């Protein structure tokens, strides 16, 4: 600290006889890196503070439509309808609908793409609440245990109202179950197919294994007329 004080004093002494222009050019010449660092730090501080106070971090609901034939993402009629139906306050949390996801888990190498990797990442990170896709594709993904077992724990009670729509699969993990378990809800006769035309041959919804908002999934089913 003492060293810094002495340096400041000597620099002030040095600048005394200089004109303003010369002072500025001296500072720019010898202290450009320091100025740059201070400006950078100021910029980042303001940026982080702004985001800490003004960014919406949480989601009410996050759903992905895999291989959807129509746009069902941000700003779509489907999303808007759900927001209106749910009455969620978007100034507090987000409602995310994503239809930019394409993979085919039934085909060899059909998952070797960035879409699948980002899809899995959002499930594993606990961000995604639900996913909708074609039945065969869905079962292949569900076999790896990435969707909730709808007959276990809280899910059994929560989704009991749509038991007649359950889609079953045999998990890879034999230690979990050696028989088929319900992992999805058939939505083939809902507006997703009949009104919005997202899928041609029906679709199935799965609740993400690490979903933080399963109640929002129930609300989505209710929005589609399943309650």
């Amino acid at each position, binding site marked *: 600290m003492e060293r810094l004080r002495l340096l400041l004093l000597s620099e002030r002494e040095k600048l005394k006889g200089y004109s303003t222009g010369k002072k500025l050019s001296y500072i720019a010449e010898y202290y450009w*890196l320091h100025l740059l660092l201070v400006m950078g730090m100021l910029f980042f501080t303001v*940026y*982080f503070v702004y*985001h*800490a106070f003004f*960014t919406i*971090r949480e989601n009410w609901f*996050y759903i992905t439509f895999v291989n*959807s*034939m*129509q*746009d*069902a*993402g*941000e*700003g779509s009629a489907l999303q808007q309808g759900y927001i209106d139906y749910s009455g969620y306050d978007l100034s507090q949390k*987000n409602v*995310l609908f*994503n*239809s*930019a996801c*394409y993979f085919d888990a039934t085909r060899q190498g059909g998952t070797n793409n*960035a*879409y699948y*990797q*980002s899809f899995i*990442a*959002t499930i*594993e*990170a606990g*961000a995604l609440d639900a996913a909708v896709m074609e039945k065969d594709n869905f079962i292949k993904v569900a076999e790896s245990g990435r969707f909730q077992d709808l007959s276990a724990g809280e899910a059994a009670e929560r989704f009991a109202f749509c038991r007649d729509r359950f889609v079953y699969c045999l998990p890879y993990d034999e230690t979990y179950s050696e028989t088929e378990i319900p992992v999805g809800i058939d939505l083939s006769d809902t507006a997703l197919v009949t009104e919005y035309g997202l899928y041609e041959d029906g679709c199935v919804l799965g609740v993400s294994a690490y979903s933080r908002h399963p109640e929002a999934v129930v609300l989505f089913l209710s929005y589609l007329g399943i309650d």
Partner: protein
Amino acid sequence: MESYEAKQRLNKALTHVVLIIMSFIMLVPFAWMILTALKTNQESISVNPFYILPHNGWHWENFGTVWLSYNFITLYKNTLLMIFWRVVCACLTATMAGYAFGRLKFPGKNALFSLVLIQMMVPAQIFIIPQYLMVSSMGMLNSMFGLVFPGMVTAFGTYLLKTGYEGLPKDLEEAAMIDGCNIGQRFTRIMMPLTRSSMVSLGIFTAVFAFKDLMWPMIVCTNAQTTTLSAGLAKMQGQYGSEYPTMMAAATLAVLPMVIIYVIFQKQFVEGIATSGGKL
């Protein structure tokens, strides 16, 4: 003598013919993309090989359609900003780490550098979930920081710059030391400017990889205002999945910034590949 010259000429001509054919093969996908962007949808799905050029006029309006449907200005802005910040951060962190590993002596240097090398050996996908959780908990999803975050520190860049610093003669630093330079001055005034070519290589590699990055922007950006060209194009696939001319028009618009950057920095691109021995 004459037959030797004739042979040389023939060799040269053959080399050129092969190169022209290879160049043609490389250019076909780009030409196909641009020509498809100017066709009608029916023409674009025609299997008639003579329909390479549009038959029913040149449909420039495809570009207008896609330009108006998607906010390309925002996509360009986000992509260029992401590239800029990733390049700045990667060069800054890699040059400092490279200098430390290449020139300084400190305990645990080799062990720490091994950690950097390990980072290069594991697939990038492994880091996605922890990075997502970090960005998410900081409240930086859908932000420029969120986009730049994984590219701020680069193991490849650290390695590249370390090699660059190691190749510089010790006398330079010693002379600066005798002249009274402290470690910061030696680094910023003497050593860093001498590794400019390695930094340019790193900048080019970082820029190209940032431009091509699809997975991270798709995960971290969920709204159209913050997304990049690659992720924006992926979203368009849902909207224009079967309209190939519109998709190709969007793809043509998307590659424009990189083509412009390449034209401006062509010399540095070639030098960068030669310096680092990498491929883009």
